[in-house]
């Protein structure tokens, strides 16, 4: 009897969470498309989400590109594919590794920060105060972050793509002995518009997920400092899992034939 109750309660809790998240998402979307739109706040959030994430994303992309070049060279030698390093680095970074790894790094940084900020506002009654001062918290807090993240992530990923390919270039030419001109030629010749564009669409979706989970977890925090801490962790974990799940769905949609 008890085991069934446990399973039942787990399922019900899960469904309740899904329901609450869906309602929150609907409210957030409605708030994003209706006036007033706080341009100044969106600008500030783009600075915090986009610009300040550049160092992290840049370094991650550089090392990822480098490692990818190394692995493809070494692994590819098993079937004479060493020559394809430039091509595969370019396609791998633009299609998958650029958006996904940038997404995960930004999720760790930004989702946590948003959850902490909004969570602290929640437990100190600042969100209730907003309501009493004729301000819709969804329009003032959530919408600017959502819009800023959806705009910033693709821009970040463009830079990540460039730096990632560059990382592969450095390793390819310095350690693996490729000719620089040939390497760049291979990169440019074999990359297609779809590779880059699919990566950018993915990154916009990831930005949405990052901001949404940060706001959602923060908005629902309860119980003081511990509650805010829990909210921060939940934000990062759920954003990361949703990014990976969404990545699979989008990849199968974009590249099914």
């Amino acid at each position, binding site marked *: 009897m008890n085991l069934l109750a446990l399973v039942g309660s787990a399922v019900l809790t899960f469904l309740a969470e899904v329901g609450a998240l869906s309602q929150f998402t609907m409210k957030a979307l409605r708030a994003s498309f209706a006036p007033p739109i706080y341009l100044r706040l969106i600008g500030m959030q783009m600075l915090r989400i986009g610009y300040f994430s550049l160092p992290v994303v840049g370094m991650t992309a550089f090392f990822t590109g480098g490692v990818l070049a190394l692995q493809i060279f070494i692994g590819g030698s098993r079937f004479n594919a060493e020559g394809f390093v430039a091509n595969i680095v370019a396609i791998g970074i633009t299609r998958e590794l650029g958006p996904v790894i940038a997404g995960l790094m930004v999720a760790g940084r930004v989702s946590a920060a948003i959850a902490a900020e909004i969570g*602290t506002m929640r437990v*100190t*009654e*600042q969100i*209730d*105060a907003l309501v*009493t*001062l*004729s*301000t819709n918290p969804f329009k003032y807090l959530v919408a600017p972050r959502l819009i800023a993240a959806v705009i910033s992530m693709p821009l970040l990923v463009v830079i990540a793509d460039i730096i990632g390919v560059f990382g592969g270039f450095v390793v390819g030419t310095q350690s693996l002995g490729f000719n620089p001109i040939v390497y760049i030629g291979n990169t440019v010749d074999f990359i297609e518009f779809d590779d880059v564009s699919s990566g950018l669409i993915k990154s916009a979706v990831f930005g949405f997920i990052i901001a949404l989970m940060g706001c959602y977890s923060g908005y629902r925090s309860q119980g003081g400092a511990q509650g805010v801490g829990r909210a921060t962790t939940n934000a990062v974990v759920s954003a990361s899992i949703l990014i990976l799940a969404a990545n699979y769905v989008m990849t199968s949609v974009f590249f099914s034939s």
Partner: protein
Amino acid sequence: MADTPKIELSNVHKNFGRKVVLDGIDLTVRAGHSMVVIGGSGTGKSVMLKCVLGLIKPTSGSIKVDGQEVTRLSERDREEVLKKFGMLFQSGALFDSLKIWENVAFALIQGEHMDRRKARDIAMEKLAKVGLGAEVGDLNPSELSGGMQKRVGLARAIAHDPEIVFFDEPTTGLDPIMADVINQLIVDTVKDMGATALSITHDMASARKIADDMAMIHKGKIIWTGAAREVDTCGNPYVDQFVNGRAEGPIQMEVLKA
């Protein structure tokens, strides 16, 4: 002269899951008067305030503001009704990311779309009214003491000249002198604006000073209500025990039993 009461709660219930917090609240607040609701911690006072504002949705019952039912309003209608209100939160709830003057002017800039310079002037005026100088306006909330934060919170609540002001434990955590400063400010600003005030507190000294009418909440119900001066002579044993701060009495027995 039967005017419409400014705020009227009828048979308001609120449950959080299986926990019953409000168990049939009936309360009337007269326009232009100051009502103080007293009661022990955890008796549902804050929840009641938040139900009136719509921050919490009551499980059942009716809440009327100026005769208009506010429990089932659309978001836009609720935003209109909320413009009549101002609230001082227990810990001030100032916005950390904004300067003090931006906090005070918030309702003016966001709600009324006032020009920032004009709003700043009004904010400085309201800060002066609560006894804070202009230099405070450019500080951040974290740089102020608790008493100053509460005064800023009061200035922020009244900046847009609301008709109704709520005070959530206005003197909690303050030293006796600062508490009296706040009490006096509440009395002066409410009289000044001709506003209706609803406060919740368990500080009897504060209650006596700021109240025209009082009500006592116990286990989710209003068990007594009347004019402030009658609170000592009303003869209700629960009120008596609370007002005189006695550990022994009908309230304590319920706590032990639970």
